[in-house]
């Protein structure tokens, strides 16, 4: 009964979304205030209906209602409650419902908090948002309905893919969807602005928080996925350049570019057409990601629900929305005239450089991801594009970005002097070079990768610190610190996020360049030494879990005579799903992770054991967390909280000279 109720709510939400995409649009065109005003209640209604549908599906999962096909395929009575709930979105149909719910939530938020937007702009934004919702709801109802029943309910379900039964992966998809879908707001604002034919500072101020929020969610979602891969896949890799990872990474790169170009629109009223284009492409790549994940056109470890028919439907959604928006852009984009002028050397130009590097890097990832498909169809060459290509083709852009960033970040608006901006960063450069030299001297016979990472990473971190420090004026220390503490939160957010990028770059190179590895057969009681740590296998036991059987090893680690930790690497078998997983035993510290994965039992006795010492690996997640935190702090900046459409405050203070 409750399931039917949810099903009904879903169909009703589709009807409401159709109304939402038409009524306000006509109202805005004709200037009918009551039609425009309908947008708000429709958006709220769509959200409420989808919330009911989602609650109904969650209810079916939690109560293990095996008359629902989706629950049979993705759940099991013995599964812990957390994974019964996360099972709702651990599959194609349910994740689409979550996607649509989040889409409706963003639309409804624009209705709830957008009171100070111009009425026509708000109506058009909500109409575009409604149209996207309608497309996805149609997709769900006609090809991927989560509420289908089965005539013969089985006694128990097939269980959720065991790889997804993990705290990291329980929350990885919702965060990614919040990010993907959050970019739809920037898209809706862009299309609405193109229809209006007007982009101004208030528009920029409106788009930025939405983009920033989407970017924060994407950052967290990608970091969670990466962390999960690190501890779950058994050899401590954290990024694989898999098509599905790329599908989340491309929108992230575009969102990062958009975030920065929207600053220019907001503060200087220029780069308007470019920002609109980025907003369209950002969401376009989100849709492309959806296509890659769900169509099965490109093979990937993650692709779920590989179904060409669904792929065609998503491709149609992509063509209509992105094609339509780009056509509109071609027709109207030129009319968006820039107001602010700026010299070749200026903050604006620095941000243009940021945008070009990020956008091109994203296209490189895109071409690499799609190339096997294109090459096979167009040239008859069956080939692969994997990590070695991406490492070689993508990394130079990030290096260039990291080099330019600290200098660009202190460049004054409108007109600056390269020498002056660079001179203020001399300290950062000196410190970075010194640290990199130290790193190079301490490591012997290893590649220069990690020292280069130290150089770039510390350049970014010290650059961010110097940026904050010089903003404090020239008075005494106390006065200066007080000033720095009182800086707008956007400035703090900027420094923290840029520092976080530096930390991440450093950690990536440190893990890749300095990790040590050991693969061997070990019998209980035996031990070996790796990077100054002695690992002893004390035993291997079978242990029952709630819905799996674990083979758990106990490994004790000593540094000389000093006890460090006891690790429990596991192999699990999930009988219901018929799948094994590995759980690495990891001891995290700030300077290194000790990582042990259990392999197969050997014919002659003993177990294969894979051990890694990964220096500074936690800083990968700390760096990502800092980036997200910087975004969050920036999001709480005063000017986003005060009425955005209200009379403009004077432009934020220029960097202190």
């Amino acid at each position: 009964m409750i399931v039917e109720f949810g099903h009904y709510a879903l169909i009703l939400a589709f009807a409401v979304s159709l109304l939402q995409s038409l009524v306000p649009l006509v109202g805005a065109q004709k200037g009918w205030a009551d039609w425009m005003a309908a947008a708000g209640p429709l958006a709220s209604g769509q959200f409420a209906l989808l919330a009911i549908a989602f609650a109904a599906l969650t209810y079916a999962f939690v109560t293990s209602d095996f008359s629902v096909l989706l629950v049979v395929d993705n759940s099991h009575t013995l599964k812990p409650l957390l994974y019964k709930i996360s099972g709702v979105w651990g599959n194609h149909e349910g994740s689409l419902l979550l996607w649509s719910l989040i889409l409706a939530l963003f639309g409804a938020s624009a209705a709830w908090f957008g009171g100070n937007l111009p009425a026509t702009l708000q109506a058009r934004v909500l109409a575009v948002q409604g149209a996207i919702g309608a497309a996805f709801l149609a997709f769900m109802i006609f090809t991927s309905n989560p509420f289908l029943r089965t005539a013969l309910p089985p006694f128990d379900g097939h269980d959720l893919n065991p790889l997804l039964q993990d705290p990291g992966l329980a929350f990885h998809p919702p965060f990614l969807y919040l990010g993907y879908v959050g970019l739809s707001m920037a898209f809706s604002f862009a299309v609405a602005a193109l229809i209006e034919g007007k982009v101004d500072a208030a528009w920029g101020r409106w788009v930025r928080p939405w983009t920033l929020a989407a970017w924060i969610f994407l950052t967290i979602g990608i970091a969670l996925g990466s962390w999960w891969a690190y501890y779950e896949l058994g050899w401590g890799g954290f990024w694989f350049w898999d098509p599905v990872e790329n599908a989340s990474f491309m929108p992230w790169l575009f969102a990062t570019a958009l975030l920065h170009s929207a600053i220019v629109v907001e503060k200087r009223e220029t780069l308007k057409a470019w920002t609109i284009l980025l907003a369209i492409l950002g969401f376009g790549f989100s849709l492309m990601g959806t296509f890659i994940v769900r169509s099965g056109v490109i093979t990937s470890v993650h692709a779920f629900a590989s179904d060409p028919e669904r792929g065609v439907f998503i491709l149609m959604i992509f063509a209509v929305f992105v094609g339509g928006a780009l056509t509109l852009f071609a027709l109207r984009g030129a009319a968006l005239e820039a107001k602010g002028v700026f010299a070749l050397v200026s903050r604006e130009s620095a941000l243009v450089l940021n945008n070009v590097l990020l956008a091109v890097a994203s296209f490189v990832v895109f071409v690499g991801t799609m190339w096997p498909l294109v090459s096979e169809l167009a040239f008859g060459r069956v080939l692969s594009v994997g990590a070695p290509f991406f490492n070689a083709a993508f990394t130079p852009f990030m290096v260039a970005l990291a080099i330019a960033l600290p200098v660009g970040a202190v460049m004054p608006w409108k007109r600056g002097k390269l020498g002056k901006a660079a001179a203020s960063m001399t300290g950062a450069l000196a410190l970075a070079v010194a640290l990199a030299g130290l790193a190079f001297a301490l490591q012997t016979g290893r590649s220069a990768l990690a020292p280069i990472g130290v150089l770039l990473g510390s350049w970014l971190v010290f650059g961010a610190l110097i940026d904050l420090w010089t903003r404090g004026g020239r008075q005494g220390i106390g006065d200066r610190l007080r000033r720095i503490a009182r800086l707008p939160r956007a400035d703090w957010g900027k420094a923290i996020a840029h520092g976080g990028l530096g930390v991440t770059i450093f950690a990536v190179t440190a893990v890749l360049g300095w990790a040590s590895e050991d693969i061997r057969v070990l019998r209980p009681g035996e031990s070996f030494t790796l990077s100054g740590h002695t690992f002893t296998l004390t035993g291997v036991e079978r242990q029952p879990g709630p819905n799996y059987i674990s083979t758990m090893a106990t490994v004790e680690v000593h540094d000389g005579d000093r006890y460090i930790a006891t690790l429990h690497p596991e192999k699990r078998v999930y009988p219901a799903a018929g799948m094994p997983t590995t759980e690495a035993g990891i001891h995290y510290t700030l300077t290194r992770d000790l990582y042990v994965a259990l392999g197969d039992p050997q014919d002659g006795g003993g177990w294969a054991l894979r051990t890694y010492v990964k220096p500074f690996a936690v800083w990968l997640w700390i760096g990502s967390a800092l980036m997200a935190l910087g975004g969050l702090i920036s999001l709480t900046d005063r000017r986003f909280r005060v009425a955005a459409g209200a009379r403009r405050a004077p432009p934020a203070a220029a960097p202190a000279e």
Partner: protein
Amino acid sequence: MRAFLLALLLVLPMAAGAVQPDEILPDPAMEARARAITAELRCVVCRNESVDDSNAEIARDIRLMVRERLVAGDTNEEAVQFMVDRFGEYILLNPRPTGSNLILWVTGPALLVAGLGIALMAARRRRAGPEALSAEEEARLKALLDE
């Protein structure tokens, strides 16, 4: 039970696995070469995994074959070519920059040059534009001064 586990592992190449202790060559330098080569070869039955990371039976065979070739005195290039001759280009994770693949390799640099070029041209155009205040800015300035 062991056979059952192995069968499961074949179904799911993502479980921990990759290089097994019995595969490792006694000569560390040659082993390092083998690891570097297999990291750039695709496990041909897996979804986007290198031979070095994969747990599939064929990945193990390829790892052993690469090591055999190296022991037999092949250079890295010869060992890779040996695999390409048997499995085709598909086995290379890093596509060779020949023929149509040039498009793949040139896209990035070409787009960068184009992007920077467009940005420069736009900047030049903008610089030529009037520096004077627009009518709207004049009005706002007046309003501010009148306050």
